[in-house]
């Protein structure tokens, strides 16, 4: 069945520049063709600023294209948007929910707005609530739902009158893997009802599972078709490198610098490499990997994505090159000593206990609201622990908090820079606030501007520069004072794979200089970069170890032998599920009932 529910042909969309000048106008989409088939999930991927959101908004009739035609269910969107609104379900990036209305009230509202028949209504609600598993929460305010539940509710609201076309704009951002996987299953089920679905995403494992994928870059379509076709283009070029002698980060850097290596990522103790076409893959020229083992592995969509976009970054981090060498020490750089945080009766984090040596990347993982943020905030001095204590770079968090703060660099999700200040002003502010002054500050700032190529943006508002540069700037500001310890709070949430790779290349470089890194993440690919991980769930540490340890442990739990094919995300989900089972079995109230 190849029934087309929506098609866009030769779409061009130009945004007027804020300055009002014609030359500054931005071409968000440039002659793009696009089809959505009924009963299929059509993925929309591409780096930030590729035009994904614009395309979805055009399909939803929220904007009018400058050129080209869009048909939804045979209706021209520009000519008759009202009829299109009747036929689509749309979930914008922030879900479009009224946070001060309850789950049921949100559903009622959208049911009425979409003229859902009164007779059908109860059945529909029952079905949607079943489907989203929100029955228990109908009276809860949408604002009090977790990210994953908000997403499901957003989806339910978009599905009220079974649309012909369902538009989902980056539904997975900021949501933990368990919720993301549930959402995917739900949407997949919808295809059996013949709904045509557009799913825009930065998660390429989702793209891989779509029936069709369109890859946009800078307003142009680079690929359109079945994901296997694109993945197939890197067939026989992806390898797993393991059993090498060198340090994994140094080996990766060396590999990325080698001619013919298009891309590389750390996968626990191993390295995943993508070779260029017409190159015989081998370990030659990769220092530290002379004795390594290179085994071909099945390509993923992400490999092909990076390939078509021109490959990953170089191995060298310009930022790390100029960084001071952090003196070697046996003293652990970050210590959580039986830390507990309670808010009233609620225990947000219980008995967190770990110590991180110099030069290690330590990951805090866990679903939303599990307590990883609380632990993170206690360690960087934003929250005081109710019990226990911690230290950073040898400074006790109870008694020398200001010194500890001086010794750490901090980068939060969404890059909390001062958006209304220029790039240079941001740099100068952070230099000053960390006590750098005069020539030291000037020299450090100039060096950063040059190595990270920020010069073209110096005078621009930090809020308005492209995301990749924003990330660089945020990192610059966080390490301006060359701290021995770096705290990263979901640093690459919502960021495309290319930008993420560049970020981790800098972090890897810094770690080689002896910097200690604590990172929280939802992104399981990112977890692979960590040396050790603590998995936090319901305020407790439920697993602890290297990524490979966790994968092994989880695959054993799930009764699967083949740990190598077990991804970090599989491990995460298996461990969370296991923790739930253990908890239910030991819950005396449940037993009594």
């Amino acid at each position: 069945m190849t029934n087309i529910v929506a098609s866009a042909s030769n779409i061009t969309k130009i945004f007027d520049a804020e300055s009002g000048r014609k030359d500054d106008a931005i071409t968000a989409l440039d002659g793009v063709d696009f089809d959505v088939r009924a009963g299929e999930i059509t993925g929309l991927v591409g780096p930030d600023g590729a035009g994904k959101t614009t395309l979805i908004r055009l399909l939803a009739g929220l904007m009018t294209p400058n050129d080209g035609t869009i048909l939804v269910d045979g209706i021209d969107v520009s000519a008759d948007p009202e009829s299109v609104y009747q036929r689509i379900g749309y979930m914008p990036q922030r879900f479009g929910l009224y946070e001060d209305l309850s789950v049921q009230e949100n559903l009622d509202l959208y049911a009425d707005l979409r003229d859902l028949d009164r007779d059908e209504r109860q059945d529909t609600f029952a079905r949607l609530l079943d489907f989203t598993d929100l029955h228990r929460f109908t009276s809860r305010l949408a604002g009090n739902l977790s990210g994953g539940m908000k997403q499901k509710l957003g989806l339910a609201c978009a599905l009220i009158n079974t649309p012909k076309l369902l538009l989902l704009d980056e539904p997975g951002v900021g949501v933990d893997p368990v919720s993301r996987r549930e959402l995917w299953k739900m949407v997949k089920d919808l295809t059996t009802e013949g709904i045509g679905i557009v799913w825009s995403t930065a998660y390429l494992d989702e793209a891989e599972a779509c029936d069709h994928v369109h890859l946009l870059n800078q307003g142009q379509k680079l690929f359109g078709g079945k994901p296997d076709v694109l993945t197939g283009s890197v067939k026989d070029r992806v390898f797993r490198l393991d059993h090498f002698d060198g340090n994994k980060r140094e080996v990766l850097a060396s590999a990325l610098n080698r001619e013919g290596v298009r891309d590389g990522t750390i996968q626990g103790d191993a390295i995943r490499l993508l070779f260029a076409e017409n190159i015989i893959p081998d370990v030659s020229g990769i220092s530290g990997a002379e004795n390594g083992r290179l085994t071909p592995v099945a390509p993923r969509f992400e490999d092909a994505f990076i390939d078509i976009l021109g490959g990953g970054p170089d191995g060298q981090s310009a930022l790390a090159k100029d960084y001071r060498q952090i003196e070697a020490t046996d003293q652990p750089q970050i210590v959580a000593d039986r830390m507990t945080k309670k808010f009233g009766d609620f225990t947000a984090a219980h008995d967190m206990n770990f110590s991180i040596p110099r030069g290690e990347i330590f990951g805090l993982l866990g679903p939303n609201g599990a307590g990883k943020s609380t632990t993170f905030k206690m360690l960087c001095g934003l929250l005081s622990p109710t019990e226990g204590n911690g230290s950073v770079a040898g400074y006790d968090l109870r008694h020398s908090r200001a010194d500890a703060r001086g010794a750490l660099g901090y980068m939060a999700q969404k890059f909390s820079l001062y958006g209304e200040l220029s790039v240079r002003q941001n740099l100068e502010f952070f230099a000053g606030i960390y006590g750098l002054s005069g020539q030291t500050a000037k020299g450090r700032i100039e060096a950063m501007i040059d190595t990270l190529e920020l010069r073209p943006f110096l005078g621009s508002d930090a809020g308005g520069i492209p995301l990749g540069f924003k990330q660089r700037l945020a990192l610059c500001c966080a390490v301006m004072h060359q701290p021995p310890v770096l705290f990263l709070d979901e640093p690459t949430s919502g960021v495309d794979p290319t930008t993420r790779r560049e970020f981790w290349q800098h972090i890897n470089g810094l770690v080689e200089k002896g910097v200690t890194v604590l990172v929280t993440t939802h992104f399981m690919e990112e977890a692979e970069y960590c040396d050790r991980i603590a998995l936090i769930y319901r305020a407790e540490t439920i697993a602890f170890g290297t990524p490979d340890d966790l994968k092994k442990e989880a695959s054993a739990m799930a009764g699967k032998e083949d740990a190598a094919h077990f991804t970090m995300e599989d491990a995460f989900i298996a461990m969370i599920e296991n923790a739930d089972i253990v908890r239910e079995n030991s819950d005396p109230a449940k037993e009594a009932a």
Partner: protein
Amino acid sequence: MASALSSRRLRALFTKEMLQVLRDPSTILIAVFLPIMLVFLFGYGVSLDTSVVRLGLIQQSSGSASRSLAASYANSPYFDVTQSNDKEALFADLTAGRIRGIVTIASDFDRRYAASGKTAQIEIVTDGSNPSTANFVSAYAQGVHAQWLASQSAEGKQTQSGGIQVMPQFWYNTALTSRNFLVPGSFAVILTMIGSLLTALVVAREWERGTMEALIATPVTIPEFIITKMTPYFILGLIAATICTLMAVFIFDVPFRGSILALYILYAAFLMPALGQGLLISAALRNQFVASQVALLTAFLPAFLLSGLIFEISSMPRWIQAITYAVPARYLIPPLQSLFLTGNVWPLLLPNIAILLGFGSLFFVLIFRVTRKSLD
């Protein structure tokens, strides 16, 4: 094709808006707390009655006329008199603002008063740094003097020379309580606050929170959207107006002499331009913070200063008077004060209501022009 107005969608949107109103603490703050605070402030805090003014008195002559005049000042209910012969100390008090005027009965007062053909002089120095107080001080000091003269002649001590005897009457507010016109007048400020400030926030909030995007992608029409955005705040405005009216009548004893129906018609007519202005601001600006600043400057401040509430419009420079014609509150205050203090003065009510409705229609035309179902 969706019809322009569907009762189901209207009801659904209205319910949603109402729930949001009830759950948003800042709404309750603006719609309930602030009105009560303002009515109290205008009821207790702002009073243009000069009830008792502190006055210095220098009595340099000690004859019976001087003593009796000094006693008249001391006994006057309008003055709180400090008697002293230290001129400099009293002047220092005047400079410090501890007294508002100095009355000097000169040493030759009794002599000149008794002598025929001569006029004894009483000197009054007021604190001109506050002109209105200064005016009151000299007017009341004159009044005390005139009364004293009259009583002297009644006792036959002096030949009364006749002259104009002014008999003032203050209609509708015999005791000249400024509260009686300030409290109803303050409702203009309160309704402007709810109508413009609060509504300025609501559409901007939909844009900021991204819910507007989801709404546009449904069959909701612009008239439905605007009507349901307006109605809850209209109701809220009427509720606040009711609270204020009850407070005025029962707490501040402001008389109410008009008809309740006329009062509510007037409130409703005023809410049209007030709500219209607020919605227009937020539809055009789409940013809560900017919208609230603009609402403050273009709605709240004019309602305060340019409506005739405290300051006489007719005394303002011509170009400011011209601006006041664009301030809806100036059409609310005179009929509102009349409803409270006079009764149904239809020639005052009807034209003002018509003008308010005219303003309202103008705003709504503009709102329809700037609100579009599009993100472009």
